[in-house]
């Protein structure tokens, strides 16, 4: 009952604690959580953070859900009350072949970026382990710089690098004898080259987080375990697959999940690169499509339905990883 006495000093309502509960709880847990004090304390601590998150995210989410069942266009912005239309917005969205094109495009773009990012990221983390001090620090600093680079600054540099007439990329390619790249516009020329540049900018920014987190996790792998595996005759690849990967798996899964979410909702890169392309319809992904429909076109009802579908898509794609993660952590 030590913890009871200790918290009694600050407890505002010690009598509200169920008698006999605190001590066993404290003994069962590896880290004693004091429960004898005010039962209200944790809730009071949570008022501000929960309130703010509800205001910034919860309320808009509910509103958006409601709006997705309403006719909410330009007329409603000028004060006409929105009309309930049931699932009509969803029917419009799902019945539009262009929506499916954009969705398929987004999923493909996301899968490509997430997989390439994870692959390069983990490979670089393993590489970091093999290096001498100076090259290791050089690579780490380069990655950290790319990570911290404001996306807009990065995007302007990439746009400048692939600028048709004076850009470095076209100059290098034409100097190498590829005359067809003289004055070639990577962004406006074809959706394929547009998405290639977009994918490079996304991967360039995302790899550092994967590499540095995986590297930090790798350093937590006990040397003794690796040596034991080596003595037991496990080859390099086996050690990696059967010893190292299971240990860093929680971190890798978390990163993969984050990458999927980030790459599926990608907006900034596409929006900025579109300004240099001018072929929005062929290059829209879900994020820019929602923007175009809502903020651009003023059709908030349809845009809300679109955004809700996008949210559901993210949840479906990440649900399994979330469950694994929750089971692994001591939540």
């Amino acid at each position, binding site marked *: 009952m*030590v913890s009871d006495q*200790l918290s009694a000093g*600050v407890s505002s309502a010690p009598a509200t604690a169920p008698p006999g509960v605190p001590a066993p709880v404290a003994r069962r847990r590896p*880290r*004693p*959580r*004091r*429960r004898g004090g005010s*039962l209200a304390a944790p809730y009071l*601590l*949570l008022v*501000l953070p929960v309130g*703010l*998150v509800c*205001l*910034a*995210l919860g309320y808009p989410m509910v509103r*958006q859900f409601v709006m997705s069942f309403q006719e909410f266009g330009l007329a409603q912005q000028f004060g006409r009350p929105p009309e309930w239309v049931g699932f009509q917005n969803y029917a419009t969205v799902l019945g539009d072949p262009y929506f499916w094109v954009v969705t398929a495009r987004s999923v493909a773009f996301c899968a490509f970026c997430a997989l390439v990012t994870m692959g390069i990221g983990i490979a670089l983390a393993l*590489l970091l382990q093999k*290096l*001498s001090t100076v*090259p290791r620090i*050089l*690579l780490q600093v*380069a990655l*950290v*710089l790319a*990570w*911290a680079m*404001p*996306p*807009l*600054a990065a995007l*302007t540099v990439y*746009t*400048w690098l692939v600028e048709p007439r*004076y850009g470095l990329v076209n100059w290098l390619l034409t100097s190498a004898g590829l005359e067809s790249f003289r004055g070639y516009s990577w962004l406006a020329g074809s959706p394929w080259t547009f998405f290639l540049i977009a994918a490079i900018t996304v991967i*360039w920014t995302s790899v550092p987080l994967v590499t540095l*987190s995986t590297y930090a996790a790798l350093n*937590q792998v006990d040397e003794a375990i690796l040596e034991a595996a080596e003595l*037991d005759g496990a080859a390099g690849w086996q050690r990696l697959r059967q010893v190292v990967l299971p240990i860093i798996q929680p971190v890798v899964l978390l990163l993969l*999940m984050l990458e999927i979410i980030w790459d*599926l909702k990608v907006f900034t890169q596409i*929006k*900025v690169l579109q*300004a240099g392309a001018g072929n929005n319809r062929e290059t829209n992904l879900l*994020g820019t499509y*929602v*923007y175009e429909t*809502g*903020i651009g076109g003023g059709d*908030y009802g349809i845009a809300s339905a679109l*955004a809700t579908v996008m*949210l559901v898509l*993210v949840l479906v794609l990440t649900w399994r990883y*979330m469950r694994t993660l*929750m089971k692994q*952590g*001591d*939540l």
Partner: protein
Amino acid sequence: MAATEPALFAPPTHADTRSARNRHKHWWNVLAVALAALWAFPIYWMINSALMPAERLRSTPPLLAPLEPTLRSFGEILGDSLFWRSLGFSAAVTGLAVAISLVSAVLAAVALSRFTFFGRRGALVAVLVVQMIPAEALFISQYRMLDGWGLLGSVPGLSLLYVGLIVPFTVWMLKGFVDGVPVELEEAAMMDGCSRFGAFFRVTFPLLGPGLVATGVFGFLVAWNEFTLAYVVLASGDRLTLPVWLRTFSSNLQETDWAGVMAGSTLVAVPVLIVFVLVQNAMTKGMVAGAVKG
């Protein structure tokens, strides 16, 4: 005895792989330096272009190094009042968002780390799930919300949206740091007569220093670099954050001023890069701690 057999022969093979490893190590190092150069190249190119006279940028072949560097592009930007107004707006939004986020995140992290209560598990799951909500799926309704409150294009409006972005992740990170401080330290202080509140503030809070710096920097980066929400919320007004200001260079009908936009990008990026390099170690550790410990 099959298991011990390789061990008997291990010493020679072991030595062999060692020397092979050392020979390989040389090539790994070369590869790493090449990759580092490749990864940092866009940043180098940004600074290189910013230091060149605008007319030299339109020459072929491109100059790979600023042989005759000039600060003219920087001078033009520093003389532009829109840059200074955007800098002020960015600083105000970022400062407010980070301050509010840190206070709320500390409160939440303490509640989740130091107390058992009904709904704790649910709250932890919520912290995770909320991070999965893409801002891009909510900006339509966030735009309508701020519009309704007359907060479009204002510091508190944008800050509120940034708090929503920052708080869940900082709670997750800070909880890892609070978990790392043994509760016994607080209990010892309380034995010596500290109140529970006092024990936390005198014992645990000072030990959270690195965690607060790491989460603070994380929040700073998110708010300072953020583009999507700023672009949506500020679209119609004349008050811009720096990332949105960078867009004004290419939205004109005339040809893009590449030297100017590169100098602008450099001015936006360099402070961030310096801060980040200084503290990234603590940040990666915090992130991993959160992931591993749950």
